[in-house]
């Protein structure tokens, strides 16, 4: 029972990190319709940037995390400007954009592999400050993740609904042609979205790095989870995506109670399978909006 509770706490914390990442993915996916595979690679780069900052440059952990988020934002801008924009200009369809994104993702992952090698790395040497409630350990990082989620998602919601740029982003997401007709420049918005989305991945990565350390395959695993959560939450519905990511984090951690951890990626897809058969529109989606 105590173990189950501990797994639940771990699951909530992991779910918070996944939610940050997933909302970034869903933001890009909902507005640009690009199946943003490179989002996972942004996560990997930011995780290794945290490691490089903390372990190689000996920065304080918080400074390393902030620097990593900055690196991620720059990378997000670069991917939009140097990968997606040229592809769009050449008239690439959504399928081609996805393959292109896959290409970018593989290139980034392999460069990180060449620089840092395959072995798993840890970022911090001391245990995290924590308190024990009813035999369940809750670390300061767990609390920080939840606080960050609450603050950031509120800010994001305010940005999307209360600012001119946010309204334009929602307009482009809803109907790009109509948005262009009323004089909205999608090119600028795609840059804003790319930076925002990457920033969220760039926050999730240092949090994971501090909690469990980093491995080269993490980015792809979290990408799969984020993509599944976006669909399970209901495409076009940001809070749904975030909630689904929370749920998947909890399910994944609880599954360790009965299954070996090697099943964690597969568990995510079992959930997807159940949804695709029983509720294909996702938790909050509307039925069938076919393009």
């Amino acid at each position: 029972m105590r173990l189950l509770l501990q797994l639940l706490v771990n699951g909530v914390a992991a779910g918070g990190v996944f939610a940050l990442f997933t909302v970034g993915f869903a933001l890009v996916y909902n507005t640009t319709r690009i199946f943003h595979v490179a989002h996972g690679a942004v996560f990997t780069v930011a995780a290794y940037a945290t490691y490089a900052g903390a372990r190689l440059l000996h920065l304080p952990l918080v400074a390393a995390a902030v620097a990593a988020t900055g690196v991620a934002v720059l990378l997000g801008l670069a991917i939009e400007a140097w990968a997606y924009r040229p592809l769009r200009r050449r008239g690439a369809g959504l399928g081609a954009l996805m393959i292109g994104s896959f290409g970018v993702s593989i290139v980034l992952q392999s460069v990180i592999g060449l620089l840092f090698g395959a072995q798993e790395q840890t970022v911090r040497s001391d245990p995290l400050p924590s308190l024990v409630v009813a035999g369940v350990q809750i670390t300061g990082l767990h609390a920080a993740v939840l606080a960050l989620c609450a603050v950031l998602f509120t800010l994001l919601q305010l940005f999307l609904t209360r600012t001119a740029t946010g309204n334009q982003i929602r307009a482009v997401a809803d109907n790009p042609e109509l948005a262009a007709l009323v004089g909205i420049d999608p090119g600028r918005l795609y840059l804003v979205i790319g930076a925002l989305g990457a920033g969220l991945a760039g926050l999730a990565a240092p949090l994971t790095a501090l909690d469990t350390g980093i491995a080269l395959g993490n980015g792809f695993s979290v990408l799969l989870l984020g993509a599944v959560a976006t669909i399970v939450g209901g495409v076009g519905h940001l809070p749904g995506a975030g909630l689904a990511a929370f749920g998947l984090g909890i399910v994944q951690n609880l599954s360790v109670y009965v299954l070996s951890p090697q099943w964690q990626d597969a568990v995510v897809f079992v959930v997807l399978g159940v949804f695709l058969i029983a509720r294909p529109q996702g938790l909050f989606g509307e039925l069938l909006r076919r393009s």
Partner: protein
Amino acid sequence: MDYALHLLVVIGIYTILVVSLNLAWGYTGLLSFTHAAFAGVGAYGTALLLMRLRLGFVPALLLACLLAAGLGALLCAVTARLGGDYFILAVLGFQIVATAVFLNWVSLTRGPFGLLGIPKPTVFGHAITTTGEYLALVAVCAGLVVALVHRTVTLPFGRMLRAIHEDEVAVLVLGKDVARAKVAVFALSAGCAAVAGGLYAHYYSYVDPFIFDIHESILLATMVVVGGRPLRGSIVGVVVLLLFPEALRALNVPGEITAYLKQLLYGSLLFAFVLLRPEGLVREGSA
């Protein structure tokens, strides 16, 4: 000489895989990052049927192909009604689940240790032992698969597949059963991929879960993109992408770096081709 024969065997096995993926993706538009998993079903299936149930190589291979085709049909039947991105993700999920099964069903697959000592095949009473004989076996199988796929895409059914790729709704409006065509193609494609897996397992006498993981599926997709839609293109894609690691080996680049350099090349090629030459090296209708 033996090395050249070995390269030809590997090229033959990959040609089967890429041609079968090309049928599903290039012709019908069913983008699959899971064909390595179907090859894995073929490899584990053939080897286990032969080692555990003492079946002959040919019946074991055929049964494993049927199993892969059945799994492919089931997967496609569940996912084909979904839109493009959903389909791609759900099918990718099969790859992830398959790898987890190969890794974790230890009593059947021996997990990460893999299956060792898979015997060389005996085909119609003739033991295949030398690389030359194996090349003949692979060539016959590759020839059969290529002929089958070629026949499929040149039949009226093949024109319908291309039409599904171009405009699915239009084909539906014509009263064609699009879902059934997709399921049939995906099953055929998965079955063909399993042939390659079975040949692979008995050629190396060894399989493990990492041979048939997502990286392999990405490699196959890269080969399709680089080669282009015509079946000749698939062979070009295979040769171009297989020769690069061989060149690295000839230059004595260390193993770990080779793995990353390979990934770097695949990623760059994927992006460069989608951007600069989306139709691939071999254009349709070119001589």
